């Protein structure tokens, strides 16, 4: 517009109408309207004094550590928000004593970030000594993750696994030209404090993982899974320092929506769980799938490459994010760590993505990684691990003046990536970014003869560390795990004549009910690859099992994405819970026509403080189940992440710990998208079969929860070998074209699955449970099965399928030896009728399908 601007500042004006007190006004202004990280609040007309922030004057700060005793070391760790334990502080002290000097602040910060739980995954990489409740040593496990999850992948050794647990995302083959990669992250602590900003930077951050994998992937799909406190909780019950779950949920959904939609990435799959124990610590899992050419799956920075930072500028936002997320939350965190929440701008990231893909295809750089937790510190530290690196911090482009050298180094400002660029390509890449109205800046180079990390500000050295010490100096620790088996009373459920109302209550339960309110806010069709949408059926509003997309528009090859998770079981039996999670994710894949032989899985562990031996033991059990399940189903883990210390300390000093929560995400490559199927019933007269056995156990079921009956420990046991045969049989039947619809049995069991299939297809169903295979594999149905377990039991490894009469024989042949039973038929009566074993005059359930759907849709009809 022809105006020369020296600086620009923006403001928003709100007018509050009505009689409110000053306290209420402050509350509204500071808690609802302003973001304290970047904004001030003024109640009168205000003219900013200085538009341009003052330049920073270098003041090198040393932190005396050499003479500190243990208590002082621990105090330094606590006061400096380093979140390091005494052993680690001692190792740092020794390093600097040997060097004969004191560390600078930026050196301490660099070590603390690299060694943080968030970046270093210390707990999962530690050795574990497992004791029984009596204190007897049962076993010693060296490097927990290597002995479980990594081991399964190594033993399975699938040729289509191209890059696993090495890069920012796991990479598997897609076709001859392309590979796909997948990463799922958590962004829990920031989302607890600032739901909108926390969730949007969560999705923004995980999108950069595929972008920073190999030489850069194009993001093609997002997934999201949330865990919240009960949204109907009275405000007076919400502890100080905690936002009401409904506000958290609205903020998180809006954050994911606004960032994901603006990035032009379809959000295609997800889940939401509610539990009182997520009150202080909501969980926000965000996943991104990327498409990458086969010849761009690996990257290697070379000595002499320029370090180029691209994308957004660096500001004061997000400082201490990595270390902050490695501790537990307290009621005071909301104010103490407000600066730890980053501020996202999707368009900056989109612009960077558009340009990076062009730079990648022009072979302009050798390596790329994202600036996530730990900012430049962790990005440059990782890339330069083998080579050493020199960084001139005063050359980093800033959002505003005044940042100190250490703030620049550890800022987690969003939308930044770091490239290693050969000298001859520096100019072309800077030009390319300029041509797209973007920014790229050379800030140093890789490759120092002494393999050091050297940080300078205005040519003065402000930090110099050995890469070897940063990356290998972390003292190994042994964790103590002590399993405290819990015993809860498990009375048998009461027998009822009629379960129709029970079914409606389960359908309306928040974990089961329709999430259409969320799904419709996400663009799930952008990029044009949509094959199976998150909502399916005659009127596009029934639940789907897994999402399917075609990432390459000119090809019929497809990718299916699903999740499995069951926090209700996590606390009762972490081992069985993990088997259930893997089984559920894979059932969902198979239900849409996925291929179990080309399916990979991802783990995301969210636990409480694992310095508690009982929680450590539950983590060990869960990790072992992951190994067992991956081997049994033949599905390797390709990537994972853990977020520990998800606890909240209330003002009164009590701790709210989340239930052990394992999210399993599955990704499967499908040869022909045109062979996929959906869960909605298709035509009256078709047969309904159940495949898989139903056990008597009801522990952790939604039936017990909804009916407010005591939840016992009796989680339905998972027979992974038998279930794997079930999944493969159903896969065969679908491949043979014998199945018109298929839906997995999970929350709410058979009755919920049948109801969902019926109302999604605008059809009815008449079923009889006589032929339902029951009992675990060991008992072969010897035990009597409670009616509630038949209807609502949540045994794994079961699917309901619709088979047209002409495919009856093909279907039965495909089943082979696996347990399956014909339950009845699809009807055009608009009623769901279920008779108990042996039939009888009166059905257990007789419901109008429209009423069932109304119950399912009513809970989140916001």
């Amino acid at each position, binding site marked *: 517009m022809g105006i020369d601007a020296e600086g620009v500042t923006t403001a928003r004006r709100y007018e509050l109408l009505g009689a409110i007190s000053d306290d209420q006004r402050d509350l509204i202004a500071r808690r609802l309207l302003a973001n304290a990280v970047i904004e001030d609040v003024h109640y009168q007309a205000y003219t900013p004094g200085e538009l341009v922030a003052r330049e920073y004057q270098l003041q090198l700060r040393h932190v005396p550590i050499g003479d500190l005793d243990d208590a002082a070391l621990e105090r330094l760790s606590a006061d400096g928000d380093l979140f390091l334990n005494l052993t680690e502080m001692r190792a740092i002290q020794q390093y600097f004593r040997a060097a004969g000097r004191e560390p600078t602040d930026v050196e301490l910060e660099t070590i603390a970030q690299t060694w943080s739980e968030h970046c270093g995954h210390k707990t999962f990489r530690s050795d574990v000594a497992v004791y029984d409740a009596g204190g007897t040593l049962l076993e010693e496990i060296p490097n927990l993750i290597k002995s479980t999850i990594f081991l399964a992948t190594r033993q399975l050794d699938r040729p289509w696994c191209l890059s696993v647990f090495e890069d920012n995302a796991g990479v598997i083959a897609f076709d001859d030209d392309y590979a796909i990669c997948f990463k799922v992250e958590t962004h829990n602590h920031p989302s607890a404090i600032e739901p909108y900003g926390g969730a949007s930077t969560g999705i923004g951050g995980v999108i950069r993982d595929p972008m920073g994998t190999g030489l850069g992937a194009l993001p093609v799909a997002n997934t999201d899974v949330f865990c919240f406190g009960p949204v109907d909780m009275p405000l007076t019950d919400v502890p100080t320092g905690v936002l009401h779950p409904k506000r958290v949920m609205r903020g998180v959904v809006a954050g994911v929506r606004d960032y994901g939609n603006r990035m032009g990435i379809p959000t295609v799959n997800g889940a939401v769980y509610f539990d009182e124990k997520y009150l202080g610590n909501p969980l926000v899992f965000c996943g991104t799938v990327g498409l990458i050419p086969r010849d761009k799956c690996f990257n290697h920075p070379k000595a002499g490459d320029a370090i180029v930072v691209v994308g957004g500028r660096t500001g004061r936002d997000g400082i201490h994010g990595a270390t902050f997320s490695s501790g537990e939350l307290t009621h005071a965190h909301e104010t103490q760590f407000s600066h730890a929440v980053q501020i996202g701008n*999707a*368009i900056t990231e989109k612009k960077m993505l558009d340009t990076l893909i062009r730079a990648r295809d022009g072979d302009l750089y050798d390596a790329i990684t994202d600036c996530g937790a730990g900012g430049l510190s962790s990005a440059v530290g990782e890339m330069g691990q083998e080579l050493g690196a020199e960084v001139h911090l005063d050359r980093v482009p800033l959002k505003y003046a005044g940042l100190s050298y250490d703030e620049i180094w550890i800022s987690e400002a969003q939308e930044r990536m770091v490239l290693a660029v050969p000298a001859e390509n520096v100019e072309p890449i800077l030009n390319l970014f300029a041509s797209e109205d973007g920014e790229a800046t050379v800030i140093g180079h890789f490759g120092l003869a002494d393999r050091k990390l050297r940080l300078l500000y205005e040519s003065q050295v402000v930090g110099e560390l050995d890469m070897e010490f940063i990356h290998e100096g972390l003292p190994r620790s042994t964790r103590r795990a002590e399993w405290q088996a819990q015993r809860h009373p498990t009375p048998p459920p009461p027998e009822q004549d009629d379960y129709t109302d029970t079914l409606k209550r389960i359908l309306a339960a928040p974990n089961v009910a329709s999430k259409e309110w969320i799904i419709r806010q996400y663009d799930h069709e952008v990029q*044009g*690859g949509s094959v199976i949408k998150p909502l399916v059926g005659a009127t596009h509003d029934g639940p789907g099992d897994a999402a399917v997309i075609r990432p390459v*528009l000119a090809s019929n090859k497809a990718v299916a994405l699903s999740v499995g998770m069951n926090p209700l079981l996590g606390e009762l039996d972490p081992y069985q819970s993990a088997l259930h999670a893997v089984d559920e994710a894979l059932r969902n894949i198979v239900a849409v026509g996925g291929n179990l032989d080309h399916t990979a899985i991802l783990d995301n562990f969210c636990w409480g403080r694992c310095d508690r031996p009982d929680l450590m033991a539950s983590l060990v059990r869960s990790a072992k189940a992951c190994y067992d399940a991956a081997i049994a189903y033949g599905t390797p883990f390709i990537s994972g992440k853990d977020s520990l210390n998800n606890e909240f300390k209330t003002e009164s000093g009590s701790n709210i710990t989340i239930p052990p929560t394992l999210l399993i995400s599955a990704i499967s490559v499908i040869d022909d998208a045109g062979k996929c*199927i959906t869960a909605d019933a298709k035509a009256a007269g078709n047969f309904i079969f159940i495949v898989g056995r139903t056990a008597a156990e009801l522990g952790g079921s939604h039936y017990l929860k909804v009916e407010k009956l005591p939840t016992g420990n009796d989680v339905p046991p998972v027979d992974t070998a038998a279930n794997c045969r079930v999944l493969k049989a159903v896969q065969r039947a679908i491949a043979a074209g014998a199945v018109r619809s298929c839906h997995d049995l999970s929350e709410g069991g058979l009755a919920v699955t049948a109801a969902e299939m019926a109302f999604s297809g605008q059809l009815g169903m008449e079923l009889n449970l006589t032929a339902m295979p029951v009992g675990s594999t060991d008992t072969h149905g010897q035990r009597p099965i409670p009616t509630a377990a038949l209807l609502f039991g949540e045994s794994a490894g079961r699917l309901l399928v619709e088979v047209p009469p002409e495919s009856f024989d093909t279907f039965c042949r495909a089943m082979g030896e696996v347990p399956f039973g014909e339950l009845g038929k699809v009807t055009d009566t608009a009623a769901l009728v279920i008779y108990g074993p042996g039939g009888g005059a009166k059905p257990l359930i007789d419901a109008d399908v429209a009423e069932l759907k109304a119950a399912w849709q009513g809970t989140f009809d916001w």
Partner: protein
Amino acid sequence: MATPRALVLRTAGTNCDRETQYALELAGFEAQCVHILRITENPALLDETQLLVLPGGFSYGDDVAAGKILANQLMHHLAEPLTRFVQAGKLVLGICNGFQVLLKSGLLPWAKVDPAAANRDATLGWNDCGQFVNRWVHLRANSDKCVFIGKGEVISLPIAHGEGKFVPRDNSVLETLRAGDQVALRYCDAADNTGGDKANPNGSIDDIAALCDPSGRVLGLMPQPERFVTATQHPTWTRGNGRSLDGLRLFQRAKQALS
């Protein structure tokens, strides 16, 4: 005839460019995605183009208002070449965010790229529900004039937008648009009934989903035709509904209109 050339205009925040290019290629166009800065540097690129497409997305984050900043760029840097483009009888298609840009730059409703006239007679405001919505809708083709869609058909396409509520300045503008046969698409239900919340996803006045200019060769629409060019994109394809590919046909008719 020679294969017609389509140019898909992209800028920061554009995000439906790739699939729009693919849809154009399926329909028989030679299509490329071009950054706005390449066109402002060299407006002659428009001379080699027969169809200009402004695709969906969030140009510049929809800061200020949806499509506003890109519209300003068109008005201040490309008014003359764009006017020439339209007067030559070439086609312009604005989808979703592109429709917003066309309205805010003056290309719609009157095909005049003019800061004084732009965004004066009609605009697209926030959906009545107050938030972004992605779902499939039915649409009735309404105009004899519009070269992109055949009058009388009921077609099916998805919408995905937060600011898609069509609002004319007043009743006389609405009457002029109707009288000029410029209302290209109206939201309706499967049985072709208009009116009601179920059929109209955003509260658009008079159920208007798409508008063309007085020549019928500039079209802006909120639904996204590039998302229905293959059978598996439709939400009920697994139910065996053999629907015609309504999105693809829109691009194919554009090609016919150029031959």
